[in-house]
């Protein structure tokens, strides 16, 4: 598929894009996480699109994913209103605080800490410890 972005033309490989987006959406809605960290590499690395094309468009696709997934979870009765009302303000507040701290921290250090944290969580989920 040919797409145009700010006067430039790009070719988007949908043979990779559509199955990839589908698979990411299944997993993301199944486990309730955002698909961003997987969608961006899919579109930049595998579909070879530049970052500036990807940021906005991937968010739009993920928004569709979150909306549909949320509605489906709600339909199956897996949405807990009280629980949501506790976490929603926290998520909004986190969205305000995060960018303000970000300026003072080195993104590489943050990412390395995150890698360690994710591995610890992964191993405890897998029952290693």
């Amino acid at each position, binding site marked *: 598929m040919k797409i145009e972005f700010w006067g430039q033309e790009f070719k988007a490989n949908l043979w990779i894009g559509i199955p990839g987006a589908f698979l990411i959406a299944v997993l993301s809605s199944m486990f*309730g996480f955002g698909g961003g960290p997987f969608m961006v590499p899919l579109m930049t690395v595998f579909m070879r699109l530049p970052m500036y094309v990807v940021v906005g468009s991937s968010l739009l696709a993920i928004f569709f994913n979150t909306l549909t997934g*949320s509605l489906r979870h709600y339909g199956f009765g897996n949405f807990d209103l009280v629980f949501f009302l506790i976490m929603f303000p926290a998520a909004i507040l986190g969205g305000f605080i995060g960018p303000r701290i970000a300026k003072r921290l080195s993104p590489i250090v943050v990412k390395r800490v995150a890698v360690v944290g994710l591995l610890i969580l992964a191993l405890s989920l897998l029952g290693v410890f």
Partner: protein
Amino acid sequence: MKNFWKLAIILMFTIAFSTNIYAEQQSVTSAETQKEGIVLQVDKKELSGGGKIIVTGKAPQGKDVYIEIWSEKNVRAARLDADPDPKTGKRPYIFYMTDEMPAFYTLIVPEKYKDVLDQAKKEGGKWSVSKVIKDAGADAVYGEPAKRKIERYQTTLWASVIGSRGTLLPPMDEKDNKRRSMQLLKAKFRSVETIFSSKLKIAQDGTFTAELDLPSNAAPGKYFILAKVDKELKSSLVTVENKVTLPNVYLSNAGRTVNLFGPFFLALVVTTFGVLMGAGGGFILNPILVLLGLPHTVVAGTVMPTVLFSQASGVYNYSKIKFINWKLGITLGLAMILGAFIGPKLTELITLAQFKFIFGWILIILAALMFWQTTPGYLEKHKKEQAILKEFKKRAEEAAKKKAEGGK
């Protein structure tokens, strides 16, 4: 005025006496039923945020007594039966579900069956409720969950793909319902010690004492206690009220009471960190909540919508500066809608163990991806890309501004 006071006093007396008479009548009837059956008392009628209840009573001499305790509040329990049939080897793929599982249920068995419980604990994840009930001689007294209505659906691959639970099968008979209720108990409460307890001492003369620890995360409302020797011989129902006060709140779908500051600060810390690391908080928040014991279906279904609004505002901000290629976004979005239609269905079908296993591997992949993003080669490329991105954004913002001014 004098008449008024007279009237008031008479009225008060009538009320006082009538309630007294009523109360006396009640205690008489309960004593009568207890005479032929089992006497059952509790040391307190009210709890606040859980606590210990001592249950005492007297049963006919030489009989084993069992005590069932369950909450008035119900939750959902579900299980996909995909175990191959031992005879034919065919997998049934029947989805069992009830919305009437007590949010709290415990069966206290006599102390002498402690070994049965210990044995089940040793079996790890493979232990079976029905085996414990059989070995502890509780088959005739296991009653409350067995009465709850369980629905069953024949699922197929196709039904999962279109995101339906499958075709509703006719209701089960009493015996089958009982058997499936045991499997659902395990699917919901998982561990031996939440469903069973052996803290029940029976003396030679038939008096018994049991201890029940209602956890602080237990549901509010009434709890029913019933002592049984067999199907017929049972005590009258005793009710205990558990109060939950702020800052503790009851999550009705999760079937648990939590201190609301817990999830709030957890979500705050995790989402803040999520912004810093550039991946949504769900990757960290969901595993922690699941490891804390909240049902994985409720965790996935409740965390997901929390980011809906920030994503919507992000889309809006990008669209204002024309930073979205609608053709690309909508095409991939449609593929994602299809995927998101199926995903939540699969959350229901998988067990907690499967949820943890797959999530564990997803996190490993994510960790690898993030590690790659800190390697020098990537950083160099990323730096260039960010510079281009910044330049483009600046131009887009200027263009949007110009247009807005021109429009005025």
